[in-house]
């Protein structure tokens, strides 16, 4: 009698007779019944082969994907490592991130130093102008003394003229000297007044310049301090970003290691396909043998079919042998033995 599962499978293809027809127990009737199901064996065999092929193609695709994932993960970590490392990248001519921070920091420090130096020059200029102002003050003082001397000379010349007038003709020469002295005194006063005015202008100029320089110096000091704080903050931010990236990279490396472990586990898991393919191959071979034998019995031997006396395929896996009832001492899956 045909097995129920064969009947179910055959009914699905629509190629079996109605189930109501009685199946003979033996004899020519049984052979005729078996012959009707023989093509099914070939189809089952082909179905299994195709299934095995499809599973293999899928596993190959999954493996391809894993290789891509692993390669991309490795490349990403390598790029990040290269970017954050201290090493220069001569091939690309690019500077490392840490190198960039150092270069940036160096440039900012240079700018700061230049600004501080400018402030120092400005401070020294203020000191010099203050010295010049002091010197101008001293000139003014000296001019005052010169003015007093000129006044004394003027009085001396005036008295000399009076005395010369008293002396009459004897004092005529003395009177000429007195007149010249008075004229020289007038010229001296004019020059002293002119120099005094120049000294005053100079002092006024120095004073306004000093005020400008002091204001600028004060602003510069504020700006330098502000810049210093901003530079410090920027450098701290850069360092923090760098540390964060290094931390992220370390995390990525750790994730990469986990990914490698996961991929390893998956690779082991995916090997089920190889075992399934082999088992299916063995079942297919058995089906072919069964088909050949049955065809021999029902007198319809297919060309090239296995002889009726040929045995079934040898089972190579522990599970197969277990199902078939073969025993024996065997190594377990994954065992390694070096001779």
């Amino acid at each position, binding site marked *: 009698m045909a097995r129920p599962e064969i009947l179910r499978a055959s009914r699905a293809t629509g190629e079996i007779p109605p189930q109501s027809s009685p199946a003979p127990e033996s004899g020519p009737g049984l052979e005729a019944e078996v012959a009707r199901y023989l093509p099914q064996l070939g189809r089952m065999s082909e179905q299994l082969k195709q299934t095995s092929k499809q599973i293999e193609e899928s596993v190959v695709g999954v*493996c*391809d994907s894993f290789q891509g994932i692993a390669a991309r993960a490795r490349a990403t970590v390598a790029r990040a490592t290269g970017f954050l490392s201290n090493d220069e990248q001569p091939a690309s001519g690019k500077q490392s991130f840490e190198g960039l921070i150092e270069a940036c920091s160096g440039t900012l420090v240079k700018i700061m130093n230049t600004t501080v130096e400018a402030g120092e020059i400005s401070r020294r200029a203020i000191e010099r102008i203050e010295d010049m102002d002091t010197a101008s003050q001293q000139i003014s003082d000296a001019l005052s003394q010169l003015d007093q001397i000129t006044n004394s000379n003027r009085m001396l010349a005036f008295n000399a003229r009076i005395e010369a007038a008293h002396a009459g003709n004897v004092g005529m020469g003395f009177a000429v000297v007195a007149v010249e002295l008075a004229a020289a005194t007038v010229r001296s006063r004019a020059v002293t007044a002119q120099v005094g005015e120049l000294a005053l202008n100079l002092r006024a100029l120095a004073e306004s310049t000093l005020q400008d320089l002091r204001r600028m110096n004060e602003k510069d000091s504020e700006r330098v301090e502000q810049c210093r704080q901003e530079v410090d903050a920027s450098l701290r931010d850069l360092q923090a970003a760098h540390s964060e990236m290094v931390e992220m990279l370390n995390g990525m490396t750790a994730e990469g290691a986990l990914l490698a472990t996961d991929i390893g586990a998956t690779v082991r898991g995916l*090997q089920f396909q190889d075992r399934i393919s082999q088992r299916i191959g063995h079942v297919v071979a058995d089906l072919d043998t069964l088909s050949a034998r049955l065809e021999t019995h029902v007198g319809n031997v297919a060309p090239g079919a296995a002889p009726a006396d040929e045995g079934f395929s040898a089972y190579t896996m522990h599970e197969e042998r277990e199902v078939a009832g073969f025993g024996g001492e065997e190594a377990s899956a994954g065992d*390694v033995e070096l001779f």
Partner: protein
Amino acid sequence: MKKVLIVDDSVSMRQMVGFTLREGGFEVIEAEHGQDALDKLKGATVDLVITDLNMPVMDGITLIQNLRAQPAMKTKPILMLTTEGLAGKKEQGKAAGATGWIVKPFDPEKLLQTVAKVLP
């Protein structure tokens, strides 16, 4: 870089073993059966061979016997990687000149450790 020849009729197995070895820093050559392996070794040398047992055209045992007959491959390590675990089969492999026997499915890390052990 050490060169490894993988011989297996299963594309996926070749790919998985190849992937594991490449990740481990090895250069990999693939062959789909024993005869293909012998052809690919003409004029080329490898540091290690990892072969399956049951393959069409030429099986793993015959391949090992052929390789051991070649002076260049006399002392090179050859590992069997197979679903077969029977003691009798392993004895056959050992007699043919196999260096070791690994039963599928393999653990990638363990495979790399074994490869490191057998390579000089």
